[in-house]
């Protein structure tokens, strides 16, 4: 197994600031916009973006929810393992809101397909956008593309893109891992 650093902590920080600015460009004061972090790994990206938007761009009280897609996945009973769920926490209605899905890596697009179905349990959003820190292009199984993209990465199927965060793994880094 070998691994290569794709993004360092400094680069991730710059990218997150750019993504935050792009969000402001489209959503201004976030009055009708909510951020939804896709469990488990999109939550950290969403929390960082919320922090940057609130602390550095002084946008008050960004609404952030966590969406777990386990029960909406299309590979139930297809793998060897039972799919384990994470917590869903959405304390507001998404009816009529502009929803921004936030995830760390966009790969096949199947998680986002599941998230599109799952979010309907909480109302009918006015529109849904997708923000992803890493976009693995050429590996999509479905016609899904991000609206906000941190970095585009070309990786072959045996390779895995791993994102680590200071809060849980000790350091902000994006790795390309070759198994």
């Amino acid at each position, binding site marked *: 197994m070998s691994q290569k650093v794709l993004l360092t902590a400094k680069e991730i920080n710059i990218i997150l600031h750019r993504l935050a600015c792009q969000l402001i460009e489209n959503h201004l004061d976030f009055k009708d916009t909510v951020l939804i972090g896709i469990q488990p790994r999109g939550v950290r990206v969403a929390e960082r973006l919320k922090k940057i938007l609130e602390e550095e761009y002084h946008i008050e009280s960004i609404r952030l929810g966590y969406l777990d897609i386990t029960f909406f996945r299309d590979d139930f009973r*297809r793998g060897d393992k*039972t799919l384990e769920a994470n917590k869903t926490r959405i304390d507001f209605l998404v009816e009529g809101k502009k929803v921004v899905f936030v995830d760390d890596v966009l790969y096949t697009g199947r998680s986002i397909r599941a998230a599109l179905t799952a979010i309907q349990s*909480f109302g009918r959003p006015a529109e849904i956008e997708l923000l992803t820190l890493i976009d693995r292009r050429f590996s999509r199984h479905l016609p899904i593309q991000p609206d906000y993209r941190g970095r585009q990465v070309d990786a072959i199927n045996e390779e895995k893109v791993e994102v680590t965060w200071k809060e849980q793994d000790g350091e902000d880094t994006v790795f390309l891992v070759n198994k």
Partner: protein
Amino acid sequence: MSELSVDHLLGIKYLQKRDIDLIFETADHFKEVINRPIKKVPSLRDVTIANLFFENSTRTKLSFELAEKRLSADVINFSASQSSVKKGETLIDTVNNILSMKVDMVVMRHPNPGAGVFLSQHVNASIINAGDGAHEHPTQALLDSYSIRERLGEVAGKKVVIVGDILYSRVALSNIFALQLQGAEVKVCGPKTLIPKYIHTLGVGVETNLRKALEWCDVANMLRVQNERMDISYFPTTREYAQQFQLNKTLLDSLNKEIVVMHPGPINRGVEITSDVADSGQAIILNQVENGVAVRMAVIYLLASKIKQ
């Protein structure tokens, strides 16, 4: 972790502690799901479940059916009263006929103890025991423990007394296994005639004085007297039973602590429990019913994920 150690839920006896932990963690997620505006998830859309009830049931059947539907499974229902069982068909034949219609999972209630175990050895489907005679009722015990965990934080170290008809109660036996597995202490309380002779071999204490039992416990699980199962008289009159073993407000208020009151339903108001207690803030009877759906969703989800396509 992350997978059950069993392929069927036949009884708590066959489970390990980690299975119960996994069921409860999964049930936490489903409890959140059933409190959403849209209470349904598509996980089991390619799974078909047959509910076979060879014995009457209202709440268990409804609870299972709702759990199955909230998981998007296809459901077929069968009651013995309207079936070929009356015409002399055997259990294995009945079930195999139903399975020929491509059913993946069977939820069965049956008057004979061990019916679920027997069936699991002879047919090719995942079996959930929804009560087999006076033997086990595993999902009831799971939802009882889940409700205790929800109210008191954890089950380990808690003292639980099961009051009433222990002899004929599958709820009592499954609860004893479940509570002990999670590290709770269990006592049973009731008329001597309704307490099995060898109950102490399960490591369960016996108390025939209700007040003493209540003073000892953190949780009291009040069982219904199952007159329909009794072929002889185990106590002189219902009135006398109520005088000795009824949980009423006066008794509850005279204790020097606040205990949690449970009942698996259906309640005989005025017999084992009075209305003012059943409707009080200390009773978690309706929470048990709500949790029943979430716990059954978890059990069905975890067992279904072990059925390979």
